[in-house]
């Protein structure tokens, strides 16, 4: 008996919302970053779920792509955060607001 695809989507949706709330409410850059990862993984989960629903591997391939891109993005993103931390001894995104107007 297969688990209905709706369950996966509900979990995926919950994860995505958690991630979104994290991005919107957190001040710490690292935590925002982790929340973004959560959103990405929520999307990966729904991709895999749909893949199975349609018996089509494209979705899983896309999920792998997404993970690889996420890994690359983490490298760049963390590097930026480390650089900001070294300069300012803080990773609070509200402090980093010079580039406006």
């Amino acid at each position, binding site marked *: 008996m297969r688990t209905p695809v709706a369950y996966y989507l509900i979990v995926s949706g919950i994860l995505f919302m958690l991630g979104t709330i994290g*991005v*919107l*409410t957190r*001040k710490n850059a690292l935590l925002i970053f982790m929340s973004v990862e959560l959103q990405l993984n929520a999307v990966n989960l729904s991709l895999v779920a749909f893949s199975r629903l349609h018996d089509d591997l494209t979705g899983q391939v896309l999920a792998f792509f997404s993970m690889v891109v996420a890994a690359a993005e983490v490298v760049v993103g963390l590097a930026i955060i480390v650089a900001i931390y070294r300069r300012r001894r803080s990773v609070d995104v509200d402090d*980093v*607001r*010079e580039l*406006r*107007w």
Partner: protein
Amino acid sequence: MVSQHSGLLWLLPALPLLGAVINLFFGERLGRYAGWLASALVIASFGVALALMSQLLAKPADDRLFLEHLFSWIDVGRFHVGADLRLDDLSMTMVLVVTGIGALIHVYAIGYMADDPRYGRFFAYMNLFVFFMLMLVLGANYLVLYLGWEGVGLCSYLLIGFWSEVPANAEAAKKAFITTRIGDTLMLVGLALIVFRFGTLDFEVVFGTAGSVLTKDAATVIALLLFAGAIGKSAQVPLHVWLPDAMAGPTPVSALIHAATMVTAGVYLVVRSHVLFELSGVALTVVLVVGLVTAIFAATCAIAQQDIKRVLAYSTISQLGFMFMAVGMRAYAVAIFFLVAHAFYKALMFLGAGSVIHGMHDEQDMRQMGGLRRLMPITFVTFLIGALAQAGVPPLAGFFAKDAVLEVAQHTDRTAVYLLGSLGAFLSAFYLGRMLFLTFFREPRSDAARTAHESPPVMWVPLAILGFGVATAGWLNLTPEGRLAGFLQDVTGFGPGGNGLGTFELAGIAVVLSLTALVVTWWIYGSGRVDWQALREGLEPFPRAALRGWDVDRAYDTVVIQPAKAGAWITAYVVDARIIDGSVNAIGAGVRRLADRGRLIQTGFVRSYALVLFLGAVGILVYVGVRL
């Protein structure tokens, strides 16, 4: 006509050009020799002209033509213009005048300009002028003619403003250039029309096929446009205003450019293009009327002038009017004869005036002169010959020339032209007598006049040669058909004949008129029995108005120059500054204001960006969902 090649033709303009180049680059180092070099080259050119003349005369009368193709100038599609020279009877006559009188004036200028710091440059310009003038008269098509036409205009500008330290001289140069430019531009339009109609500018083709190519109206338009160029160059009414001011140049320049040669280029142009003018008919009438009006108008101005050179300037304008009168009556040979005679006596009088000015230490006002005949005998005698010639005293050249014009008028039943022409002749005798008596007779009226000295031989020898020429040039046209007329017949055809008073009766009337004028002027200015200054006062305001050329300058200032300046001011400070610049600036300011508002959405808060991103994603999702 079988055209023949003469190896000498290119030398004619090449020699003065060489002189111009050498003097332009090495004139400073040549020092005093610059003038001699320039003169020698023009004399050499005159020698070449004489050689060509003998070659030309050796040929049968219907084949007197040399053509020389120097190089292909413009070669585009079916439009070809060559740098072609053409020597026929008409250009031969002009070449002899330009190089012959030009050479004498060059020699004279050696003395006249001796103390000038820019001696070399002066002769470079003079040689350049002779080069362009020769190109003008030798061109075998309208483009070469136009090259010379503009070239002499340039040299005229450079030489009028030669002493440009004085702002008035630079102003006069600008005025001359711009005024003639008006005519030149119209002439250029005429040339464009010729290209448009004929597909070529070659004289041979244009005149040969004009009858079949042009309608009467087209011929009128082209002829009048060409005549507009002639009006500008030859200082006819209404574009005459530049010539009196052109006297700001050194006197040899006035003699060469503004009396003997350049200003007669307009006459040459009309005579050269007479086929077009005859096709039109109307154009010839216009030429006649303009010539007549100019002849009378300028003569009235000349009577009131105080500056000896300005008298001569107005006199030149008036005499050019006589030439155009002759042209307008189809008497082309008479016009050219007049041109030759005028070149002699007007160059002579200008050089004489220059000698007076030189002797008077740069004083040009005749009121300061008087009694110069004892101190400057040679100048006096030669000047007297020139003045009597123009006044029409036989047997000097001017008598025959002027008489020929009046005779044509009388013989073709143009009574009004004859009477007005006689009036013009009377007036010219009058102003010449006035100038003569004021300058050379009675007692000196200033210290400069008491201490005046005769000019050096380098100046009076050319005067003497010219005086001899003036005395004898009349014989050129003495026989009934005229030697010069016969020589020119191949180009101009015979002038109109007809019946009227006999030649001797007409000559008698003309001589009586001239002598009357001279006697009257002697009585007023020479006898001491009339207080001529009080007389002048009594006639005000006419003398003052005539002195200013009947205020044509002021009229132009009011009607043309001030409105043009106002228009330029509006364009510069309203249209350009307010409207064009204003709209550009307004667009810039508007973008800036918009950006000032718009950039405030950049708060710098990362989370608000994320929220917008999120809301956007939701919005797209909702949109897609609704669509489904």
